[in-house]
């Protein structure tokens, strides 16, 4: 029933698309230079360029078997402040309005795909992978920071506990994954198998777990870095009440969506946009976890009614534009300049995170005795990082002024690399898993 973003792409179509972009850029130049009519830059121009650039770059990527998402990111990087600066940072900021819509729809779609059967079938692997990701990646990255203390300039003068606290902060962010990337790649490839179910389950569960983990680590880090600040776990209690409230709100709005789709069922697209913006604003005001609220709402729609198909179809019809803008904006936001300054350290951290994530998956699937597919390709969905990780790094930036800016730069640089290579790896993993499935049957 639903349409795919994936289209039949051949060399001729890609060539014509590139020609089209060249005609456009030439027309811009012709109107601006020889005729002398100045074009005032605006957010619409930026949005249009990112969408079209994303479409064409996505097609080029598809031609080489890469995910379209990588093309969207690439278009953002090329047009963005890091490269040609056709879309400047102000315009990127203006487009953030679309991001809240994108995140809401991604979470809602993830929730809609989250069926009871899927949970029952993958229960063991999900539970084991959750704790192994927290323990192995968390401890692994913290230990790495302690060992690397002499080579990281802002850690040199710190005590052992302070270094461990900073390491734990980075580790908490390293545990986070990218639900947006997972949902986008699954939407593009339309693959449904144990690897797809596992990836979706883990990114959603870890989103909640990371929030709790991050709150605990942040409290300890603040206390150890500024001795005047006592350890306060009151924020943890507050966080738990927020999570419970988020689940309650998600359930309520899920039931509301069922009611609307069952009894009114008009202007579905408008309804999804309205509920996405409305609920995001409510979550922001009440400080609920937006992602959790939407996932729970989607879960309720899928598991307590037969309206999920309508909902997924509507979201997919809308999400095509939103996804391009979301990832192209993310690409334009990536700071390639900072990456070049600390590339050695970033490379070590990225490799370490990949290795610990692989180890976490390996341990989990051995214990859970998961299918061969998960044992072999289970790590591939979890390399990507995006909005959640950057959001957490911004909290560190504000709340831990002693080391916040340095850690934020490191996190964003690591996220940049992971976001470039993560989606490619996940698509490859999914394709390999399908081949494996076929060979086994």
């Amino acid at each position: 029933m639903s349409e795919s973003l994936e289209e039949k792409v051949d060399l001729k179509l890609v060539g014509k698309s590139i020609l089209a972009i060249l005609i456009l850029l030439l027309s811009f130049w012709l109107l601006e230079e020889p005729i002398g009519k100045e074009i005032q830059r605006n957010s619409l121009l930026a949005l249009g360029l990112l969408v079209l650039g994303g479409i064409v770059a996505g097609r080029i990527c598809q031609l080489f078997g890469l995910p379209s998402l990588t093309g969207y990111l690439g278009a953002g990087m090329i047009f963005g402040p890091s490269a040609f600066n056709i879309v400047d940072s102000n315009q990127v900021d203006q487009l953030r309005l679309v991001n809240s819509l994108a995140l809401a729809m991604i979470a809602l779609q993830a929730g809609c795909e989250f069926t009871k059967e899927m949970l029952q079938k993958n229960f063991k692997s999900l539970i084991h992978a959750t704790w192994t990701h927290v323990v192995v990646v968390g401890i692994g990255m913290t230990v790495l920071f302690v060992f690397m203390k002499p080579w990281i300039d802002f850690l040199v003068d710190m005590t052992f506990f302070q270094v461990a606290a900073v390491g734990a902060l980075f580790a908490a962010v390293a545990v986070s994954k990218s639900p947006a990337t997972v949902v986008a790649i699954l939407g593009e490839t339309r693959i449904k198998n144990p690897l797809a179910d596992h990836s979706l389950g883990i990114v959603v569960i870890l989103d909640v777990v990371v929030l709790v983990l991050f709150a605990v680590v942040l409290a300890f880090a603040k206390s150890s870095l500024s001795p005047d600040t006592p350890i306060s776990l009151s924020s943890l209690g507050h966080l738990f009440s927020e999570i419970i409230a988020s689940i309650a709100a998600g359930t309520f709005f899920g039931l509301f969506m069922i009611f609307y789709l069952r009894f009114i069922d008009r202007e579905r697209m408008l309804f999804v946009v309205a509920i996405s913006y409305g609920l995001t604003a409510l979550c922001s005001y009440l400080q609920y976890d937006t992602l959790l609220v939407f996932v729970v709402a989607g879960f309720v729609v899928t598991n307590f009614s037969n309206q999920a198909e309508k909902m997924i179809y509507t979201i997919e019809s809308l999400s095509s534009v939103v996804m391009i803008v979301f990832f192209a904006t993310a690409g334009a936001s990536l700071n390639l300049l900072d990456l070049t300054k600390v590339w050695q350290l970033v490379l070590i951290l990225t490799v370490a995170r990949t290795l610990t994530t692989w180890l976490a998956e390996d341990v989990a699937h051995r214990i859970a005795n998961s299918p061969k597919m998960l044992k072999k390709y289970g790590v591939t969905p979890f390399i990507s990082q995006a909005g959640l990780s950057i959001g957490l790094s911004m909290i560190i930036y504000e709340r831990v002024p002693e080391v916040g800016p340095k850690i934020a730069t490191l996190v964003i640089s690591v996220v940049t690399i992971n976001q470039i290579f993560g989606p490619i790896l996940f698509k490859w993993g999914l394709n390999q898993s399908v081949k494996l499935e076929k060979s086994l049957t």
Partner: protein
Amino acid sequence: MNAILILLGMFSLTLFVSNLGFLTKVHAFSFLSIPIALGIFFAPDGLIPILPSTREDLSWALKVALAWTTFLAGTQLSEKSPHWGHFFKLLPIFLGYLLFYLISLLLISYFGHDLFRLEFIQPGVYTPSALALALLLSAALFSSQENPFLLSMVFVSLFFIFAAPLPVFDIYDLGFPFAIGIIMGTVCRLIISPNAKLDTPARLTLVGLAILGTGWTVGLGSLEVLFGLSFGWALSFIHKYGICKDPNLKSSDIPIRFIVALFAGLYIKMTLTILILGIVLALCRLFIKFLLLNSGLRRAEDIEILTSLLPISKLALPILLSLHLSPFAGDVTRFILGIFCIGYITNDALTLLVELYTGRVLMETENLIHE
């Protein structure tokens, strides 16, 4: 975020009212009166005012909506290409329009300053601005689905309506958006294959091009509706492009026209002058149209009267709103938009009455045919 929430709330209310069983059965009623009225109600100068910033925060989305709605109209342009037969059919309408123009000119130019205290009108002097203002307003208000010629007059009047210190509309303001539309049409023909249906990638490309073209046109300080028309026409010109034939393309038209109408209301500053002029001109319009029908100069079936002749053109409102959002905006454009909107609502109400009076006969006939 607040802006979006408030406007979505208003939009939901519009949808709710529009979907009332009674109204969905009516032919002549355009539904756009409801969002216009709601917009006037919630306008910064309205009864329950919203902040002007709330409205301005979403003006970029409105510009895309305006370009899109005219793009959809543009894809139909090649079907409505004028020919001599069409011209002779429209001749009586032009005679009626001439009468309507004179009435508008008289009202605005003669009574404008004395009775209505219009500061930008010289008392009793037919300045080019006053002539063009009356031309623009009357052409927009008199237009109906069957006479795109009147809409051309709207554009022609733009060259004369603005005088210093306002920015003056020049040939580039007309030429650039058309050129951009043709460039976008060409680009679209390259990116989307001729046989492609309106699937997700094609829809995405169209939306991307519409946004880009709108941004480009706005960046040049011109009217996005001109770009929309040109883009649509460029796609449908010669051999209508595959995606233009897809019936799903039109599905977005109604919600977008609702948004446009809602915003139009939000930009209006209601005064007694606007109210009186709007109602009087709408009454005159209806009177002249029925005069033509009764005199035998123009013959039409009942259904044609209710669906084509009486309702005001769908393009007129986007054009006037686009003008008010452009660098040419000022008191004049707000005045025109205000009168047009009141005229629109009055016309809708009057045609609703006409339909209720004559519609029973029509519906009975339809039922008979069906049976």
